[in-house]
C-alpha cells in the first residue's frame, strides 16, 4: 500500500515494521511527530514522553539492554541533554538494537542554533545513517536496527527539518516481530567502571574498522552512474535531492545513507572516475573534511555555504553560478513575528514584568520565550531548557558580589520545570540565591503542539497518571513561600511580584492558568470590546501585545473573532473604555 507520509510519520512506521517494542522522547521541533505517530502502534510499542531527552535516551538504553529493540527521538539540542548516556552506551554496546534519532534544524526554523549533529556520531564513535526522503526514513530504520545488533553499536539516525516535515509517497510493509533477546547479567559489558571502559574503548576502535568495511558494501550507500559525465557528486540526506534537482543526468552520484564511518574505499573508487568532484552536504563539511584528510581532491565548502539550509537554488548558484530569474516588487511589507496568542496566560505575567524597573527576567525555551518580543520585551536571556532558573541564579550571585541591587526573576514553563527546572530550583534554595523562580504553569507542553507532561495527569499512551504539581515540588525542596497566582489577574500578579521582591526567605511563584488552546476546555463565553465613546486613544491597551487588540482609524479595536475574554487589556485601560460582553 502507498501512502503520503512525512519523514516523521515514516520513521514511526519504520520502527513499527522493524519490531521496535519501546520508544521514548521529549518533544522538540522538528522531531515531535515521531512519537505522536508511534502511539498509533501502542498495541505493539510501549511509548512515553519522558521528562527530558536524557531520560528518554536512558529508557531506550535500558530496554535495549533488557533485550527489546528500542528507539529514542529528540531535536538536535536535545541530544546535548542526552549526550552523557549515549557516549557511554557507545562504549558498552547493545543487547537488542538501539537507535537514537536526532532531528536537526538547519536554518533554525524553530531552534536556538543550527548545530550539525553528524559530529556526534564521530565524537561518540557510533554508527550513523541518514535518509534522504520519507521512503528511506521508513526503510532505513530496519537496517539501522540490524546494524546496531550486528556490530554491537548504538546507531544515530540523523534527519533534518526538511526530512521530518516534508511529505512523500511511501510504500508500506508489514511488521516483522523480532524475538526478545535473552537478558543475561553481564557486569563486564554493562557496568561502566574504569577497568571495563579501558577494555571497551579498544573494542570500540575495532568496531569502527568493522563498520567502515560494512559501509563500503552497505545497501544504504549507492552509486548512480550516468553516461559521459565528468562531474561526480558525493552527497547524503536531503542535499542529495537538491543535487539531483540541479544536475539531473549531467552528473554521477555517490549517494550515502550510511555516513559514519564513511566508506572511504567506495568514495576513492568513485571519485577516481571524474575530473571534478563535488561534496554536496548541508551545514558543516562533515564528509568533506574526512575525505580531504584521506587525500581525496574534492570541492565543497569553498563554494557551498555552511550557513543555513540548502535548496536547489543555493546549490545551483554555488556550483553552476546559475540563478533563477526573479521579479521583485517595489512594495513595503511589515514583519510578522510570532506572538503570544490572544488569551495566553503568559501575557499577564510578562506585562507585569515589563512595568518593573531594575528587574532582570531570565527565561528559556517555550512559548514564554515570546515574552521577549515587542511590545512586552520582558525577557533578558534565553539560553536553553532550564537556564531560566540556573542562569538567573548566576546573574543574581554576580549582582550580589558586585553590589548591584537588581532583582532577578527566573521563568520556566511547567514542562520545562520537569525537564530541567527542578535542579535549578534546588540550586537557588540550597545555595541561597537572591532571586525568585517562577513556574508559568499552563498545564501543557505548549510550543511543540500540546504534549502531555508529568503535570497533566495523562501519559502519551492515554493512561491516567499521577499529576505532579510544581507547587508541591517547590515546597518539598524547601521554599518557605510558594505563591499561586492567576497571571491574568494583574492586581494579584503585581502584588505577588512585589511581595516576592521584598521577601527575605526563599520565595517561589507558580502562575496557574491553562493554555487557551487546550482541547476540551470549557468554551470561552465572554469577550472584551472597546466602547468607542470612552476610548481616549492613549494606546495603553496596545502595550499588552495581544494580536486581537489593534489601533485603527483613531481608536482601539478588539477583533471579536480572536478575543477569548482574558480581560488583561480591560484591566490595563484607565478609562474603563473596554467592557466585557457575553456571559
Amino acid at each position: 500500500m502507498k501512502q503520503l507520509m512525512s519523514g516523521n510519520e515514516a520513521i514511526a512506521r519504520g520502527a513499527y515494521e522493524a519490531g521496535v517494542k519501546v520508544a521514548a522522547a521529549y518533544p522538540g521541533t522538528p522531531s515531535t511527530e515521531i512519537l505522536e505517530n508511534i502511539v498509533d502502534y501502542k498495541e505493539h510499542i510501549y511509548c512515553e514522553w519522558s521528562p527530558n531527552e536524557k531520560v528518554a535516551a536512558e529508557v531506550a538504553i535500558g530496554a535495549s539492554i533488557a533485550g527489546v529493540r528500542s528507539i529514542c527521538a529528540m531535536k538536535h539540542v536535545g541530544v546535548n541533554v542526552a549526550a552523557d548516556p549515549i557516549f557511554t552506551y557507545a562504549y558498552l554496546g547493545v543487547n537488542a538494537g538501539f537507535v537514537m534519532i536526532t532531528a536537526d534544524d538547519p536554518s533554525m526554523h524553530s531552534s536556538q542554533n543550527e548545530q550539525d549533529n553528524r559530529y556526534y556520531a564521530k565524537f561518540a564513535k557510533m554508527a550513523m545513517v541518514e535518509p534522504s526522503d520519507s521512503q528511506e526514513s521508513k526503510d532505513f530504520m530496519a537496517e539501522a536496527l540490524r546494524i546496531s545488533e550486528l556490530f554491537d553499536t548504538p546507531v544515530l539516525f540523523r534527519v533534518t527539518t526538511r526530512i521530518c516535515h516534508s511529505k512523500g509517497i511511501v510504500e508500506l510493509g508489514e511488521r516483522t516481530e523480532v524475538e526478545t533477546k535473552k537478558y543475561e547479567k553481564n557486569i563486564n559489558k554493562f557496568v561502566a567502571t574504569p577497568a571495563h571502559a579501558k577494555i571497551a574503548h579498544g573494542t570500540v576502535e575495532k568496531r569502527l574498522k568493522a563498520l567502515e568495511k560494512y559501509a563500503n558494501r552497505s545497501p544504504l550507500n549507492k552509486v548512480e552512474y550516468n553516461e559521459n559525465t565528468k562531474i561526480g557528486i558525493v552527497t547524503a540526506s536531503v542535499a542529495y535531492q537538491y543535487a539531483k534537482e540541479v544536475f539531473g543526468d549531467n552528473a554521477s552520484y555517490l549517494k550515502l545513507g550510511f555516513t559514519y564511518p564513511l566508506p572511504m574505499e567506495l568514495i576513492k573508487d568513485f571519485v577516481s572516475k571524474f575530473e571534478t568532484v563535488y561534496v554536496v552536504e548541508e551545514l558543516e563539511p562533515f564528509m568533506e573534511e574526512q575525505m580531504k584528510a584521506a587525500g581525496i581532491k574534492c570541492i565543497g565548502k569553498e563554494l557551498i555555504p555552511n550557513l543555513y539550509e540548502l535548496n536547489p537554488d543555493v546549490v545551483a548558484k554555488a556550483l553552476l553560478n546559475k540563478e533563477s530569474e526573479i521579479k521583485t516588487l517595489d512594495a513595503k511589507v511589515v514583519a510578522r513575528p510570532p506572538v503570544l496568542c490572544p488569551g495566553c496566560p503568559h501575557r499577564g505575567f510578562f506585562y507585569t514584568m515589563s512595568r518593573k524597573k531594575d528587574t532582570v527576567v531570565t527565561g528559556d525555551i517555550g512559548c514564554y520565550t515570546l515574552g521577549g518580543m515587542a511590545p512586552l520585551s520582558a525577557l533578558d536571556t534565553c539560553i536553553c531548557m532550564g537556564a531560566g532558573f540556573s542562569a538567573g541564579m548566576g546573574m543574581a550571585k554576580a549582582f550580589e558580589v558586585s553590589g548591584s541591587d537588581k532583582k532577578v526573576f527566573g521563568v520556566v514553563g511547567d514542562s520545562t520545570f520537569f525537564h530541567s527546572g527542578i535542579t535549578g530550583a534546588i540550586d537557588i534554595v540550597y545555595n541561597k540565591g537572591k532571586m525568585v523562580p517562577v513556574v508559568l504553569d499552563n498545564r501543557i507542553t505548549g510550543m511543540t503542539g500540546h504534549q502531555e507532561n508529568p503535570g497533566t495527569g495523562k501519559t502519551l499512551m492515554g493512561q491516567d497518571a499521577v499529576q505532579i504539581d510544581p507547587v508541591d515540588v517547590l515546597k518539598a525542596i524547601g521554599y518557605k513561600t510558594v505563591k499561586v497566582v492567576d497571571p491574568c489577574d494583574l492586581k494579584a500578579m503585581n502584588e505577588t511580584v512585589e511581595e516576592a521582591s521584598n521577601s527575605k526567605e526563599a520565595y517561589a511563584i507558580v502562575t496557574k492558568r491553562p493554555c487557551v488552546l487546550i482541547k476540551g476546555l470549557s468554551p470561552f463565553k465572554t469577550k472584551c470590546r472597546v466602547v468607542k465613546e470612552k476610548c481616549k486613544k492613549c494606546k495603553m491597551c496596545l502595550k499588552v501585545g495581544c494580536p486581537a487588540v489593534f489601533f485603527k482609524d483613531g481608536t482601539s479595536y478588539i477583533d471579536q473573532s480572536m478575543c477569548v475574554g482574558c480581560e488583561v487589556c480591560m484591566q490595563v485601560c484607565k478609562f474603563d473604555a473596554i467592557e466585557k460582553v457575553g456571559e
Partner: protein
Amino acid sequence: MSDTKNILLVGVGGQGIILVSKILTAGLMKAGYDVKMSEVHGMAQRGGSVTTQVRYGKKVYSPIIGMGQADILVSFEKMEAVRWIEYLKPEGVVVVNNYEIPSMPIASGKEKYPQGLIEALQSAFKTVVLDAGKAAEEIGNIKTQNIVLLGALVKALELDEIDWEEIIRETINPRLVDINIKAYNKGKEL
C-alpha cells in the same frame, strides 16, 4: 526542473493552509503524480507566517524550491503575497485573497498596514484577486475561506481531471463536508 509544477501556499497561522495542502497532495497523488510537500509553521501556534510548498510531476526530487521557482503563489493574506513574491516565476500566477491580518508591529501602532499591495502585484504579475473571506461568509462559515482558495487554485492550475469533491469528502470532518464543497465550488466561480 523538467515537468515538475511548484505551488507555494502562504498565509498566517490559523488560516487553514495545512488543510488545503493536505487535500491538494491527496488529490495529486490519486491522479498518479509523484508528490512532495514541505511545511514550515514558524514558532507560534498562531499569528506567525506559515508557508507550504507542494511539488508534483513524473518524478520529484527536492521537497522545496528556491526563489523564482513557483508556478503559482496562493496567498491567504494580502501582505504575505508580497512577502513571498520573489519565489514566483516571472511568468507565474499569483492568487491573492483580499484579506488583511495586521501583524504585531501594525497592531501595536508602530507601523501601518501597507497600501497599494494589490496594485503592485497586478502591475508585475498575472494576478487573480478574490475576496475569499466575503465568499465564505456568504456561504455561512468564515472558516471555509481556505477551501474557497483551493477552488481558485484548482481553476488556475487547470487540475480539473481530479475529483476534488471526493477528496474533500475523504479528508474533511463529515459534518462540515457540504459547506466545504459549497466553498470549493464558490472558489471555482470567482
